[in-house]
Structures are given as structure tokens and as C-alpha cells.
């Protein structure tokens, strides 16, 4: 066992040396998570306390990213918002990952009629422009934050179902699956104990790439006024509020949350690309 773990570590080290961006991205994601956890205790100002006397001030030593139309500190709000944005994205992606992996692998394992029905369902979902579908879902379920999570999870679902289905389908008649069955494992146990763990690494890549996409989608939904309500600090709604002041030159309302969104998506995407390099067997030499 120790040799395998050593060679895996060595491989990861080799990939990181060849692609230092992955290390940067991993560190970035770690910092983001840390900020989401402790950010609210670190920020210099209360994110929702307004003080109209200092409204719309440009960035200064006291307010690093300026103040918004109610005199709230944009920097503090951006940091505090990290928690909500990351929680929405992470819960949406985990929800669709769990459901997608289970439905997809059962569909790929069982095949036949069930597989056809699942395939048709996925086809219908993919016939919608996905952001529009998310909008419609929030409309149907009600304009609340939980429903942003559900809608984002729903539009991610087709990718996980397809992925798990295809990966299980190629493995279902493999020797080790046969022998598990021959040893008396039930079908459910074969799926849960052997097939799912086997496709997990490949799905990790998908998760990381999807997290960035989920952040963008969730922020887009709250930008158009769905889900998150004022005065809750959230990047999408902060940009939406700042948009009203951009044509009068108050750029800082948008700059800080906009940059936060961009860098978050960038870190997740780079990490996903890096993970793919680590896990792709073709890279192992």
C-alpha cells in the first residue's frame, strides 16, 4: 500500500511541478474556503450596517474597496458574501452529484427500459437552454434561496447522470464486477461498493469544473433578482446594486464582488483542469 500511495504522491508532485497553476488554484480554493468559514469574524465593518453619511465613497485607506449607496463597506460585504456564494454552489453541486451518480449508475448498470427512460429525461433537460430552465424552476418553486440551490442542482444533473451512466456502462461487465457478483454481492452492493468508488476520481474532476459553473449560475440568478434578497451580502446581488451607479462612474461597487466572482470561478476551473491531469492515466508515465 505504501508504494502505491508514494507513487500517487510522487505523481501529484510531478504534475504540480509541471503545472504550478494547479498548486496556486488549490491554495486559492483553500483560502476561499477559509474566508467563507472565518471571514465574517475578520472583516473590519458590519456588512449590513448602513451609514448614509459616507455613501458612495471611492476606495480609501479606511474603506479598501469603497462604500456603496448606503455607506456600507464593499470590501467587508464581499468577504462576508463568500460564505453564502460558496454554500449555494457547493450544496447545489453535491446535490446533483449524489442524485446524478446514483441515478446514472443504476441506469447504466441495469440498462434496458429504465436506461431509455433516464436517457429521454436527460435529453429533454438538455433541450432547454440551461440558465433559462433554472429561471423557470425558481419561478415554479418560489423565489427563495433554497430554490436557487435546487435549480442550480437540477441544471447540473444531466451532466452527472450522463457521465456516471457512461462510466458504469463500460465497467458493468468487467471481470472484477463479475467476480463480485459471483461472490454473492447483490446488485445494489456491486453498484455502491465497487462501481461508484471506481468512477469517483473521474467525477471529482467534473465536480471541480462544475463548482465554477454553479457559482456563475447562482450569481447570475441573484443578479436578475431571484433568490437572495437585500440586504444580504451576495456577489450577484452586489453587482446588480452597483450596476445602477456604473454609468455615473462609481466603479468600485461592482469591482470588488465582480473580481471575487471571477477569481473564484478561475480557481475552481484551474483546479479541475489540474485534477484531470493528475487523474488521467495517460499522464502517468
Amino acid at each position: 500500500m505504501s508504494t502505491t500511495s508514494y507513487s500517487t504522491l510522487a505523481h501529484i508532485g510531478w504534475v504540480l511541478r509541471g503545472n504550478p497553476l494547479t498548486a496556486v488554484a488549490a491554495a486559492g480554493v483553500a483560502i476561499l474556503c477559509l474566508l467563507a468559514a472565518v471571514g465574517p469574524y475578520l472583516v473590519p465593518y458590519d456588512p449590513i450596517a448602513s451609514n448614509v453619511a459616507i455613501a458612495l465613497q471611492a476606495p480609501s485607506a479606511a474603506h479598501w474597496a469603497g462604500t456603496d449607496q448606503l455607506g456600507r463597506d464593499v470590501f467587508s460585504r464581499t468577504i462576508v458574501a463568500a460564505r453564502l456564494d460558496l454554500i449555494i454552489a457547493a450544496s447545489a453541486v453535491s446535490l446533483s452529484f449524489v442524485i446524478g451518480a446514483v441515478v446514472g449508475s443504476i441506469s447504466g448498470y441495469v440498462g434496458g427500459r429504465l436506461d431509455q427512460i433516464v436517457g429521454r429525461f436527460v435529453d429533454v433537460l438538455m433541450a432547454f437552454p440551461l440558465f433559462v430552465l433554472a429561471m423557470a424552476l425558481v419561478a415554479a418553486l418560489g423565489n427563495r434561496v433554497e430554490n436557487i440551490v435546487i435549480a442550480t442542482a437540477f441544471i447540473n444533473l444531466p451532466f452527472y447522470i450522463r457521465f456516471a451512466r457512461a462510466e458504469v456502462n463500460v465497467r458493468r461487465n468487467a471481470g472484477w464486477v463479475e467476480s463480485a457478483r459471483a461472490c454473492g454481492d447483490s446488485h445494489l452492493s456491486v453498484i455502491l461498493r465497487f462501481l461508484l468508488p471506481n468512477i469517483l476520481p473521474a467525477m471529482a474532476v467534473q465536480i471541480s469544473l462544475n463548482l465554477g459553473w454553479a457559482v456563475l449560475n447562482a450569481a447570475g440568478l441573484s443578479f436578475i433578482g431571484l433568490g437572495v434578497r437585500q440586504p444580504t451580502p451576495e456577489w450577484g446581488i452586489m453587482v446588480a446594486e452597483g450596476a445602477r451607479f456604473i454609468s455615473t462612474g462609481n466603479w468600485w461597487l461592482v469591482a470588488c464582488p465582480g473580481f471575487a466572482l471571477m477569481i473564484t470561478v478561475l480557481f475552481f476551473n484551474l483546479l479541475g483542469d489540474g485534477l484531470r491531469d493528475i487523474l488521467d492515466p495517460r499522464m502517468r508515465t
Partner: protein
Amino acid sequence: MGLFEITMRRVGRRFVSSIPALLGVLVFTFLLMRVLPGDPAVFFGAGTNAGQAEIEQVRKQMGLDKPIPQQLLLYLKDVASGKLGNSMTTGQPVLADIKQRLPASLELTFTALLIALVSAVPLGIWAALKAGSLIDHAVRMFCVVGVCVPTFVSGLVLIYVFYYMLGIAPDPTGRLDVFASTPPNITGFLLIDFLIVGDMSGWWASAKQLILPALTMALFVLAPIARITRASMLAALGSEFVRTARSLGLSSWRIVITYALRNAVLPVLTILGIVFSTMLGANVLVEKVFSWPGVASYALNALLSSDYAPVQGFVLLMAAIFVFANLLIDILYSISDPRISIE
């Protein structure tokens, strides 16, 4: 059989096979609207101020007292005859509203797609031809960063730079300046209508309004197109037929355009479906940022005031456009790859 006939057959077959997806879309929207909060009779017919008796009447009229499967059939019949209900906010039939606003959205989306294709494909080819060079790295970095900037943020950055700082863009609201005269409504596409009546200053004014939102949308999809063009061009350039063409002494221009590009275009076409889907979604955000009077902002306003008939109409329309776009991509695919048509 001629190529045309083969293609037409294929189109027909593809069209037939996209019918189940369209039906599924209809059933899905129907189900979505049934789980809507509140009473469809209130939302689609009577309005929130209606009395109990009036609501009852609308419910009967809409067939909401019938069993669900029968309701679904009624719904399909309504959609087939273009009855999408009335908008409470505008007081007009949804179909009429959508007809009036659709050209604005299409003009924006097509312009953006054109800008994206015209800039991303050459960029991808250029990067592939100079693989490993500074240009290649710049294009690759642009591709990585480009997909990370939300449409609504890049739109605001463009407004800040071109409207506020440089002052060369007009006020970023709507399709035309409030004081400008509108052309006669011929096609609904302002750029075309102005051309038809020969009003060049009007054309220029509407083009100036269009360029920033179109650019915003184009920026978001530029990256995936450039990325896939670069990758497939690299594969094509490294292939044996290109090596053979080179050894035969063909001009490098001809090798790149005729041989490599024609083969590299297929993956680009494949990804165009996803690109179009993201564009239809990005449309909502861009129309909001630039107060563009298109179907998306119409649906969004309706959605935020709990007026659901326009939302339903919008979702159906978007799905229909997307299915149609996929069909179109498929036709292009079979034109550019004759192997597919040979049975």
C-alpha cells in the same frame, strides 16, 4: 442521389427525431406550471383582484376542473393554436408581446454570435499555427480567463470604459436613443429596417447601441470557440493528410484553409450547440444590464411580478429556438462532413 437531396432527407429525419424532445419540453413546462405556487386560474386568466365566482369561471374555461391528462391535451391544443395566455402586466396576449419583442433579442444574439465566430475562429487558427509561441499562450490564457468573467460583470466593465471613461458609447439603455426616430416596423430588426429606408444616421445610431451588449455576449462565448478551434486545428495540422499536402508542395494558405480547417470545423460545430444554449441564457443577463427591450427582459419583469404566463411562453420559445438551432447545426454538420450523409 445529389448532395442536396441527401441533406434534405437527413434534415427531415432529424426534424422527426427532434419531435420527442419538443414534446418532452412541452410536457415539462406543463408540469412546471402546475407546481407553480398558487392557482393557475388566477395567474393565467382572471388576475389577482378577481372575485371567487370569476376565478371559478376561468377555471372551468381553462379546463382546470378536468383530470390532469386531459388538461395536458388541452394545453397542447392551446400551444398548437398559439394561445399562451395573457400577460397581467401588459394586459396583452403573450404571443403578441413576444412577437413584438423577439426581433430585438434575435438581433442581439445573432450579432453576438457573428462577432464571436468572426473573432474566435481566426484567433484559434492563429494560435494553432504558432503553437507554443507568445500568441498561443496569450490566446490560451484568454480562453481560461474568458469563461470566468460573468456576463453581467464584463458588460458593466464595457459600460464603464466606453460610456463613462471614453465617452464614445451612447447611453447604455435600450435599442435606440429616446429622442431618435424609429424606422417603420418592417422586419423588427432595426439594422435591417434602417437599411431598407436608407436612413444611414439612424442605422449608425442603432448600431452604436447594439455594439456593447453584443460584444458582452460575444466575449463570454469567445473563449470556448477559440479553445476548441485551436485544439482541433492542432490535431488537423498534425495529421498525415496535412503532411502529405505539405510534401506535395501545396501553398501553406491552401493547406490551412482547404484541408486543415475543413476538418477542424466539425468539433467547432459540435460545440456551437452548447455555445448557443449559453447565449440564450446570457441573453437574460445582458438584456438586464443594458435594459434591452427583448423577450428575456419581458419574461424577467413578468417573473419578478409573479406574472407567469409570459414566463411560460418565454421558456417554450427558448426551448423551441434551441431545438431549431440544433437542427440547423446538424444540417451544417452534414454539409461540411460528406461522410455523414453516405449510407
